[in-house]
């Protein structure tokens, strides 16, 4: 018995060690980003992961020299508005097809489903022209509205599955009690699928925050740019000083990494509760 325990223990230690080594290798690019940002101009062309001594000068320089907060605010406005709208629109839609079961709504759902696969690449050109006609180029709405349209289908699929899994009796009871459709939606359906809403919100946040293609085409004025497109413009600007460029990269990457660490529990819970099914 003791032998067996030892064997299990040994196996567990080996697995932990292997996973840890793999993780360290996997994290090299992320670590490299930070160690590059902490180098002096003399050290940046040293082909090694860690360089000593470190300096915080790059962070100071890039923060003083550049209006990074403007891009942060742009990203936050675009992302938060998109997430909120996707949640509202897709939950209303999913509620109508899976709980109210409105005649004809399943056809709409099927049409929506076919666009799950529509790549942004094929819509960039017409969207650019459409938004130009609306005079929405370089406006927040010019990004937010297409993002909502592209985000709704996936979100509807997830929420529909959750609505269909929730107990029908509750909806019926509410109807008998005289609730109208909107009251059922607001007071019963939404609270019931909260884990799914949180999951969809987190995923939509990550996707929107990092979207590149449309942002590149629509936001051409520098003060309207979102965070994902500014590294490109700084890569030329700081060509001779990669340390400063990497400080900017780190500043851009950290908030979302930090945010994910904070919400990862809810995200994984939503995912394991069956947010994305077979």
């Amino acid at each position, binding site marked *: 018995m003791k032998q067996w325990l030892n064997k299990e223990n040994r196996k567990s230690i080996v697995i*932990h060690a292997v996973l840890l080594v793999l993780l360290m290798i996997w994290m090299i690019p992320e670590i490299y980003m930070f160690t590059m940002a902490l180098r002096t101009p003399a050290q940046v062309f040293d082909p090694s992961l860690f360089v000593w001594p470190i300096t915080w000068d790059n962070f100071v320089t890039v923060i003083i020299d550049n209006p990074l907060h403007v891009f942060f605010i742009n990203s936050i406005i675009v992302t938060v508005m998109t997430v909120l709208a996707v949640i509202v629109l897709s939950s209303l839609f999913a509620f109508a097809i899976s709980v109210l079961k409105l005649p004809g709504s399943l056809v709409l759902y099927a049409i929506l489903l076919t666009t799950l696969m529509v790549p942004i*690449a*094929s*819509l960039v050109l017409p969207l650019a022209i459409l938004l*130009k006609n609306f005079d929405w180029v370089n406006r927040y709405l010019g990004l937010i509205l297409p993002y909502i349209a592209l985000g709704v289908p996936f979100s509807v699929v997830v929420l529909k599955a959750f609505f269909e899994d929730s107990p029908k009796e509750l909806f019926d009871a509410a109807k008998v009690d005289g609730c109208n459709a909107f009251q059922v939606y607001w007071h019963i359906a939404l609270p019931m699928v909260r884990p799914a809403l949180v999951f969809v919100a987190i995923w939509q946040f990550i996707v929107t925050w990092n979207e590149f293609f449309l942002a590149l085409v629509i936001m051409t004025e520098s003060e309207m740019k979102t965070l*994902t497109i500014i*590294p490109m413009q700084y890569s030329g600007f700081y060509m001779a000083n990669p340390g400063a460029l990497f400080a900017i990269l780190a500043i851009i990457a950290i908030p979302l990494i930090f945010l994910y660490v904070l919400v990862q529990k809810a995200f994984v819970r939503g995912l*394991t509760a069956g947010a*994305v099914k077979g």
Partner: protein
Amino acid sequence: MNSTPLDMNVSYVRKRSILRQFGRYLFLVPATVIFMVFIAYPIAWVVTNSTFDGESVALGNFVGLQHYLTVITDPVFWVVMRNMFLWAAITIPVQMLIGGVIAYYVEFYTERWRTFFRTLFFIPVVTSVSVVSLIWIQIYAPYYGIGQEYLKLFGIELANSPLGDPQYTIFALIVVNIWQWTGFSMLMYIAGLSNLPREILDAARVDGAKGLRMAVSIIIPMLSSSTKSLLMLGIIGTLQTFPVVFLMTNGGPNRASEIFGTYIFKQSFVIGDLGVGAALSVIVLLIAFILSVLQIVYLGGQFDSDNKRNTP
């Protein structure tokens, strides 16, 4: 036709219920409107414009399928097709394999460290893709990049940066994509594994199945729903690919790493040939559409909510 108070009452109720029924359709309106304007209309636009002369925004002459002919006779188009095929054929299985193995060990053999591993392996997914691209340019850089420096430790000496060699560029980019998205495959498999009924695993263990045999004959079949989702998301992801290539090589050198995103971007916004850009967009849409139909036919519903069977 003689209208009694009772009849009036019935018709009043019916009218009210029709009104209410109509009111319920308001639930569908916002999503449908935004979908029509920003997805359906653009699709109709590219389909129409792909058959017209497109010097400017206004429609020119009808040219039939001429733009499509231009596209398929362009050798770059076939480079794009090859690259997209390689992209899907390599990234999807490799991510599934690495992600699945990590998920298996993290889920079944760790306890206190589980959240730690789950979270950190997922970090590349939430790192902005433009940040990731610039980091990897630096890693691949000749002379001062750490990539080549560390490969020397294994006796691999590269003559120049893999990004500068037309033969290897696409593979160098695929490596970046795999690195960024493997954490996502891991998390999908963790979700699948955590939903496996423990009794079946225990029963199999009692029957003497363990290690590799257990994984191959019991766990992998039971994860087929996660695998299907990953396959679909992988294909969408492949067709969506843009920033990594745009930022790291912009389709170069000599257009060897061109993909749909960069190709459409150049045709539409750099060269300004809207007709050809629209034709390309339609081709991408068709490919996406055909692949999704194939998947539904061969793999069953993409997100089938009724598919609750966890048993193989």
